[in-house]
């Protein structure tokens, strides 16, 4: 999250002028975790047990490939009593790779104010030009709880924006598109046979026990069997893990990504091929980003673009 607030200074003053208590941030570590670590058992659709599939040597992705990602930044800009007023900027972009060069294909930005409904009503004039998102008011105001709710709203809004520009791009292009995260954000994405989701996070794991150990100990250049993650009934996808870099001596998650693709027989047949293409995306490495072992350079390029071009 960025502390850049220059773009919000005017808004902050306007809100303060309405009698709200000015604020800038909440104390570190007080917001809790956005995602709880858990195991949600998946259904294997390729093998009967977890084992490593060598995918073969990396192969360059043929033709044009697009990368989609989004960014968000938010901060508390005031308090209405005990409840925070959160301002956010969300952005998403699709960068298309043609002839090894990245080009911006789609981009969208939104500025949001998230607060309790009555607060938003009071701020109506001050937040002109911003999207207003309400947080539920079934419970009494709580500065931390309300902030967590606001942050979830920002996450969701950013996800919706990504889906929006993803659809916009796919309606105009038949090129492969790689999304940072899960395809289950959109049923349309989940069905798209030329989209891949690449998840870097492993807070939710698909197996437990000995299977999990096999899953997490995949050697570099190998993938897990294809499985169907649980909880994606609305937008079912196929998924598999792929180890991009050797993990030995580092940690179990080093270089491990989880790939999502349409739940089709074609995906099953092409899992190795798709994995070889993804292996080739290890270069160039995404340093100095600390997630470089899992962050594809194309995704990082989208993040860098959004970060550099934001206000």
């Amino acid at each position, binding site marked *: 999250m960025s502390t850049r607030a220059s773009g919000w200074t005017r808004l902050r003053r306007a809100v303060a002028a309405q009698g709200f208590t000015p604020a800038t941030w909440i104390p570190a570590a007080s917001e809790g975790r956005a995602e709880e670590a858990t195991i949600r058992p998946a259904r294997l659709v390729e093998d009967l047990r977890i084992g490593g599939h060598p995918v073969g040597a990396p192969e*360059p*992705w043929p033709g044009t*490939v697009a990368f989609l990602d989004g960014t968000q930044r938010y901060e508390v800009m005031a308090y209405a009593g005990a409840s925070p007023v959160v301002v956010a900027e969300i952005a998403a972009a699709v960068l298309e*790779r043609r002839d*090894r*060069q*990245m080009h911006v294909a789609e981009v969208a930005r939104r500025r949001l104010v998230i607060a309790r409904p009555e607060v938003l009503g009071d701020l109506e004039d001050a937040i002109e030009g911003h999207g207003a998102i309400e947080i539920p008011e079934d419970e009494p105001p709580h500065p931390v709880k309300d902030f967590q709710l606001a942050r979830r709203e920002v996450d969701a809004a950013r996800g919706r924006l990504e889906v929006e520009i993803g659809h916009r791009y796919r309606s105009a292009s038949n090129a492969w598109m790689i999304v940072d995260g899960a395809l289950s954000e959109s049923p349309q994405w989940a069905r798209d046979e030329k989209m891949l989701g690449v998840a870097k996070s492993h807070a939710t794991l698909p197996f437990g026990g000995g299977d999990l150990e096999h899953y997490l100990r995949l050697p570099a250049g190998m993938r897990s069997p294809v499985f169907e993650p649980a909880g994606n009934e609305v937008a079912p996808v196929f998924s598999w893990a792929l180890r991009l870099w050797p993990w030995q001596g580092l940690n179990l998650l080093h270089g491990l990504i989880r790939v999502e693709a349409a739940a089709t027989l074609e995906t099953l047949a092409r899992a190795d091929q798709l994995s070889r293409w993804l292996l*080739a*995306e*290890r*270069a*160039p*490495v995404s*340093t*100095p980003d600390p997630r*470089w072992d899992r962050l594809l*350079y*194309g995704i990082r*390029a989208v993040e*860098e673009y959004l970060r550099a071009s934001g206000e």
Partner: protein
Amino acid sequence: MTAPIGRVVATELKPSTPHQFHFWTARESPVGIGAIVRVEAPARTVFGIVTDGFAYSDLLTPIHDVIGADGDPALAGFAPTERAQIRLYTAAVLRQLPEEPLQPVPLGAVHLASDSDVVTALRMDAFLTTAAPTGIPSGVYAAGGLEAPIYLDADFLLGPEAAHLNITGVSGLATKTSAVEFLLSSIFQTFPAQKGSVAAVCFNVKGPDLCFLDQPAELSEEDRRLYARLGLRAEPFGDVTYYAPYKADGVNLNTLRSHEALAANTVPLVWGLREVLDYAEVLLNKDDVDAKADAFIGFLGERVVGREFRDITLSDQPLEVKSFADLEDFFRRIFDFMEVQAKSSEVWRNHHIATIRKVRNRLGNISVRAKGLVTDDGQASDLPWGKFADRSVHVIDVAGIDPLAQDLVFARAVSKLKEHLERRDLGVDHVVVFVDELNKYAPADGQDTYVRRMLLELSERGRYLGLVLFSAQQFRSQVLRRVVGNAGTALFGRMDMDEISSPGYATLSPATKAKLAALPKGELMVRHPHFTQPLFVRFPRPAMLAGRVGVERFPPAVDLPFPQAVARQLRALDPAVTAPKVEALIDGRREEDVRKALHATRRTRPDNVLAFFTAQLGKRVEREVAPARGVTGLKKTSDPYG
């Protein structure tokens, strides 16, 4: 307005200043070192010239590239995505509008300069858009597909505001000579009428460099296009006269321009004792220069040479000293008198014998070392002092003569120019003097010579007279700093890295130095008072024949035996003169007499050359054959030791 090609960026580490800014461009941008750009910002326009460039990617450390390529350099090129890269340029500010208040360069869009931008950026509008423009085309600035003529201000090139031009560059590329030839041609074609007339005196100091300025060169289409772009005619100089001393034989010219087809405007440079004596100081080194020697030389000049000199101690008859031979006889008489009649004295007419001997040695030395330059008949063949024509070029070929004689020629020619310009009776208002190998004549180190002092004087005060020095050398750092420092305009061709590393080039950026070190033929870096930063320009090949090509097309005539050489000299005046006729005329004559007659004929250029020459030879004095003395020959013997 053209589309922007970049954007100014400023960070705390690389901020914009009033004199420098940074901008990035697309990778395929045509911007390069030396390109002129325009920054557009609200209420301010800034012009700059690119002085340095940087490129880097988002790679934090090289090890990450190694990791990404699995340690195999061959794989590194196959990464599916090319890393994000930046082309970041540094530009030096040429001009800001408005000029006050002078502020740091604002963040703004960067455009490649157009023709009119170049005029404004280089402040050429100050002398091109006035009622009486004074622009002299010097080449074209080219960048990003744009090509703009670059002008030098005549007021700052030939005075009176500033003056003089110096050009530096490695030898062998002919860039220095070509640049001067082109620029002189440009001056002759475009010198503003309101500034009066102009001529050039060029010293050809090596090989055939300047020997064919009147001969057309073959030019490429590109060269002709450049001439047209600059509004100049691609033609050699129309009025060129060559001056060359004779060789020691006194009849063959000491020049590589001795082809008979070029003889019409190649004339001998011959000086008599008077001409040499006036510049005797040139012949004296620093240790020699003292009041006594000066006084004695003054005595010779005022009382002896060219006058009737009476001194009973030397001769009953009045002495007439007109030539070096006469002078030698004069000295001999003094020494005889001192040795024989004035045994106890070492002084003659208040001049110590050592002083007299020193002056005699120095003067005698020049008559030996520059035998073809000085003549015994006392009559000079010289430049047309007082009759210089507008747009005339006078090339003095000293390439083949002794360095001491070169100094003498140089000193006398420049001094005469100065004298006549001071009196305003030279025939023209401005004279450009071109001297190559300046490091030889005005070295930074070494002893202080007359020529060095004269060049310094010329560079410091010449512009007030209309006497302008165009000079060239390989190493600027080896030339007297005040001489090159006084050159308002400086040109730099391809440079040696050692030279660029010297302190005089410290203000240039590393990229500019690198460009200078690899500058192609026909490109120069220009410094001019109106330009706040050095600028790279391209100029066409000169429209006159290069020396090397010239000697192939007009091979130098071989040295001929005395009779044929005389015939050739006369044939230059009258093509009807034949060698047999001349040989018959001079057969049995003393060579000195023939030379005198020949020089007189050349000077007079009569209608009937042969008749005049014959008259000058005078009546033939029949050769007397000495009777045999009857000395008995040695007996022949087979024993060589016998």
